[in-house]
């Protein structure tokens, strides 16, 4: 079973500090984590985002927010590339999240059929 001593060894191996924290010119993901979001599966959306970050070695800022009043469209996820419009995606599944990460975050193409709102930069 894992023990905290192992954590010390892991720490030494982690060279790059790709913490999902604020940074200039980083793509940003915001996940709605109000009661409505959580009930609709937001926690697993966050989990999928973290898995994709790990798998694809991405450098992103991931933040969470409360209810924004579009409860019926939860789970919601906003994506903002540096200098671009903030796009809100809704009614998401885990597969949708993977699609958004590949198309929007990596290739810069908005996934139009999943967009529910757009906030101009």
């Amino acid at each position: 079973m894992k023990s905290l001593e192992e954590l010390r060894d892991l720490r030494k191996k982690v060279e790059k500090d790709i913490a999902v924290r604020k940074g200039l010119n980083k793509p940003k993901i915001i996940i709605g984590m109000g009661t409505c979001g959580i009930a609709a599966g937001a926690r697993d959306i966050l989990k999928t985002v973290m898995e994709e970050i790990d798998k694809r070695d991405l450098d992103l800022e991931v933040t969470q927010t409360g209810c924004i009043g579009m409860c019926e469209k939860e789970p919601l996820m906003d994506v903002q590339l540096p200098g671009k419009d903030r796009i809100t995606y809704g009614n998401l599944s885990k597969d949708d999240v993977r699609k958004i990460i590949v198309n929007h975050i990596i290739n810069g193409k908005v996934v139009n059929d999943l967009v529910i709102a757009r906030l101009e930069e």
Partner: protein
Amino acid sequence: MKELALHILDIVENSIKADADNISIEIIEDIEKNIFSIKIKDDGTGIKKEILDNITDPFVTTRKTRPVGLGLSFFKEAAKRCNGSFEISSDNNGTIIEAVFEHDHIDRAPLGDISQTVISMLLWENEFEIKYKHIFNDEAFIFDTKEIKNELDDTKIHNNKIINWLKEYIDENISNLRGGEIN
């Protein structure tokens, strides 16, 4: 909510929004006494007296987007449905919430993915400490971010390799504690 872990995540988000520095989650499972209890304690700004009296009424909320607040109402109803109890107390020093369920009640939701719940809390921007203690009959597992940060030194807890490791660490320990059962 489909999992008790989701209720916990939801309630803790209130603590985070109340600017808590220390959040404690204590789960007690006592099979003999047929108890599944969840206690969440924070040192946040607390809830005003006039709101506290009706806090589990779905039509009482402090948020502005819509005049309905469901988090605490859901949690209370879940406990009541399982012949349990629900208590909340709050003052300037923080808030304590305790929900008790009958362990073997058919309507009691499973614990669920508790490690993912804890990890989701760690990924909030705000800085705070979490202590998660899980007691199963006579055994206990304690996850304390203060202890973790001590081991990590300068490496950030938000590092995705660290986060992944912590998730497995919690899963393994909880599964071991609960006799091979995670959820």
